[in-house]
């Protein structure tokens, strides 16, 4: 039997904590390697503060540093790291993927060189004889154990909460997340800051444990180790980082017979793991398979109340587009477009390929900035509003090219759109999920996705994926629903089903629908009014009957009379 002494256990817990600190930003899709920098900062804070306290406030000869001061240090380190990371987050997090990894790696090295050269960090020697909390070193196991339990359970709560859902949505598709009302900048900054806080408090505890602190504590190597923990353990849940951290930090002890070769073996194991364990030890959706079928909670008698966020504006104009022009470089995609939407109407937007229909949707949902003109929603000028802001206001869309969270279940896809209802306080971490699930299941059935709740969105057939996009948008309670080719790729029966669905949305829930569609019978049969675009300009606007006989429309679709001969 292997003898594992308490120091090994402490190291395992410490590395597991650092693994979590790398995992938390990764939850929202950011590979940040900055943890060692915040770990160093937390450690220096503890070292400097506790030395000063011991010198000035404690009676001389006190051997054991009091707990209360440790708590103060933890709180201060958490605060400091949060503020630093939050400030930095806004800057750094515009970067993605490998660029973010490099920027944060640079941060680690900058902090290291600074600490190495500054006067008050003790230079290359560092800070010595940091006061001890326990008389014996193995007692630190308790401190690390408590920290670990607190942090791990906090992160598990976060994972399960609506914020965790938002993080995962952003990780998979930032655009889709924003279109569902998730604020990408805020979520990413928060995730980054949470990671920093975890690293910072681990630094505090480690400074006391090690008794000495210097700039070597956090460097390039430690960043890389943390990355290896999370990638080998599995980047999908907190347990991946924990398991990876514990295993890889215990490995040198298990390999003690190979003492001299252990780092070589460590390197080989990392290579082997990335080659043969691509999903990590704890794969994605590891726990899901033991979950009961969520559709058992479906209540066929319940349905959500109609919502009305606009209030009873006497003006029937829900949305006004005024002199809208969009230019991409020299290309004018939309020119001087002007129309408005009545509340509760179904409005069709048609035109030949390249007429600028999707560009209009992109402007309405905020993905593309208008070059000139205005967009008013219930008399509010929203021309400059961001995507998620508009989604929260009630302008929701589906995408022509489908932007589902393909690696997540159908139910989770729908749930990802509930972000707009969430309170901002701490309560949102433990908020009851039951009512949200109930509603998600309602929309799932409403859109004809019965029995699919647990399947991966990416595994659905094309028609179901379109229906899922719609269910997801409905979950966010749209005032205006922008449907981009809702029946593309569907057969006749499915098309008429979709037609019924859209009518039902208007009649039962009062949703205003704008749809882009090439299938002319559907548009003519469904819409109250139709706008026809050609080369970015409005060439006709009116009832289906008017549009059908409009000469300009016929010319645009079929060519001039002259050409027809």
């Amino acid at each position, binding site marked *: 039997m292997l003898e594992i002494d308490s120091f090994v256990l402490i190291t395992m817990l410490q590395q597991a904590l650092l693994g979590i600190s790398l995992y938390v930003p990764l939850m929202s899709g950011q*590979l940040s390697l900055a943890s060692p920098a915040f770990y160093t900062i937390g450690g220096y804070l503890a070292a400097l503060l506790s030395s000063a306290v011991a010198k000035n406030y404690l009676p001389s000869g006190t051997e054991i540093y009091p707990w209360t001061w440790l708590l103060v240090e933890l709180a201060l380190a958490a605060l400091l790291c949060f503020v630093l990371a939050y400030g930095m987050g806004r*800057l*750094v997090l*515009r*970067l993605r*993927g*490998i*660029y973010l*990894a*490099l*920027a944060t*790696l*640079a*941060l680690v*090295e*900058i902090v290291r*060189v*600074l600490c*190495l*050269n500054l006067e008050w960090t003790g230079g290359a020697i560092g800070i010595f004889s940091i006061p001890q909390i326990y008389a014996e070193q193995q007692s630190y196991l308790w401190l690390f154990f408590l920290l670990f339990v607190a942090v791990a359970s906090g992160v598990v709560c976060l994972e399960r909460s609506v914020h965790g859902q938002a993080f995962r949505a952003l990780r998979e598709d930032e*655009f889709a997340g924003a279109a569902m009302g998730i604020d990408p900048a805020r979520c990413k900054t928060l995730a980054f800051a949470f990671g920093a806080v975890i690293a910072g408090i681990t630094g505090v505890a480690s400074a006391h444990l090690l008794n000495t602190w210097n700039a070597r504590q956090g460097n*390039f*190597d430690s960043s*890389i180790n943390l*990355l*290896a923990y999370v*990638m*080998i353990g599995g*980047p999908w849940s907190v347990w991946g980082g924990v398991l990876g951290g514990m295993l890889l930090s215990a490995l040198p002890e298990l390999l003690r017979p190979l003492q*001299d*070769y252990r*780092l*070589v073996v*460590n*390197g*080989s*194991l*990392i*290579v*082997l*793991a*990335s*080659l043969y364990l*691509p999903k990590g030890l704890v794969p994605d959706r590891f726990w899901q398979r033991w979950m009961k079928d969520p559709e058992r909670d479906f209540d066929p008698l319940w349905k959500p109340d109609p919502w009305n966020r606009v209030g009873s504006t006497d003006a029937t104009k829900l949305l006004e587009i005024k002199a809208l022009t969009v230019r991409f470089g020299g290309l004018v995609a939309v020119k001087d477009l002007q129309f408005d939407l009545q509340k509760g109407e179904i409005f069709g937007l048609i035109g030949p390929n390249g007429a600028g229909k999707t560009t209009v949707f*992109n402007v309405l949902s905020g*993905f*593309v900035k208008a070059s000139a003109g205005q967009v008013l929603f219930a008399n509010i000028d929203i021309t400059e509003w961001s995507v998620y802001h508009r989604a929260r206001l009630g302008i929701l869309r589906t995408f022509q090219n489908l932007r589902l969270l393909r690696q997540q279940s159908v139910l989770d896809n729908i749930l990802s759109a509930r972000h707009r209802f969430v309170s901002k306080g701490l309560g949102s971490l433990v908020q009851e999920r039951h009512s949200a699930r109930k509603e998600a299941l309602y929309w799932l059935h409403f859109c004809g996705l019965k029995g699919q709740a647990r399947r991966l969105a990416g595994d659905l057939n094309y028609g179901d994926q379109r229906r899922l996009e719609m269910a997801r948008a409905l979950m966010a309670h749209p005032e205006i629903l922008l449907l981009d080719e809702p029946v593309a790729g569907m057969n006749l029966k499915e098309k008429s089903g979709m037609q019924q669905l859209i009518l039902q949305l208007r009649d039962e829930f009062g949703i205003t629908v704008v749809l882009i569609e090439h299938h002319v019978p559907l548009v003519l049969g469904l819409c109250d009014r139709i706008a026809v675009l050609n080369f970015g300009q409005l060439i006709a606007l009116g009832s289906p009957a008017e549009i059908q006989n409009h000469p300009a429309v016929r010319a645009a679709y079929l060519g001039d009379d002259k050409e027809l001969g």
Partner: protein
Amino acid sequence: MLQTLLNGLCIGSVYALFALGYALVFSLLGVINFAQGAVFAVGAYLTWSLNTGSWGGGQVPLWETSFRLSFGLSLGISMLFCAGLSAFIERVAFEPLRRRRAEPLLYLVSSLGVAILLVNALLLIYGAETRNFDLEAIPFIPVLVEWGDIRLRGIQVLILAVSLAVLALLILVFRFSLIGKALRAVAENPAVAGLLGIPVQRCIVYTFALSGALASLAGTLVASGFSIPGPHFGLLFGLKALAVIVLGGMGEISGAVLGGLLLGLFEAFVPAEFSGYKEAVAFTLLFLGLMIRPQGLLGRPILEKL
């Protein structure tokens, strides 16, 4: 002034040489080969051993032989060896992932694993002591070149000349030869390049081999100009090279050259009283560069399609 400029250009040209290997691999595969830094160290140690005839010194006892090769020949063998090593790394740590279409992060992890493995293997063999080249033994190179007020060590002149010559040659090859065209096609779209009859896999292996040879050359030049402070210096230089390619624009060949020279100059102009902060120059540049111009000096902006 001119003196500092030349010192900066000298080290900068080595950075450029080394960074070019990263840029080539990145332009082709869109991934970063961290093992490059370790290959740099392997190259430096191998040249040193061949040139001085001493092997080992870590866990392996020091073994002095009378078998000594000239500096140029040692360098050549070391470059060949590192080219093979780099191609081998491609085979074991990259090719399997590529076949599986793994996410780019995994390449990072697997190449880091290789780097850890190689550096620690070097540590086992050579230990962490500083090694110096016997500069006297290099023929045709004067110890000191004086020209007016400017004094350069002979080895610096050699470094500058070799680096600039190799850089110029490579840029010409990439710009004008058929191989350069093929590489650019593979970088743009491997699948289409394959359809056009370009041997994609061979292109990738050759690129890795070339980057390995460049790493060995850069490692040897740095080691002979200064010293080998231990196997970890490869990783540090690797990080600096990353800073260089980010600065110049990831995957841009001329960007890597420009970034390398700039980094060398910036470092050279750090005042002596702040020399402790010299190490941070590369990372500060990297950080600021990413903040201000994420696509790098010569890179094209990254567009995201909705």
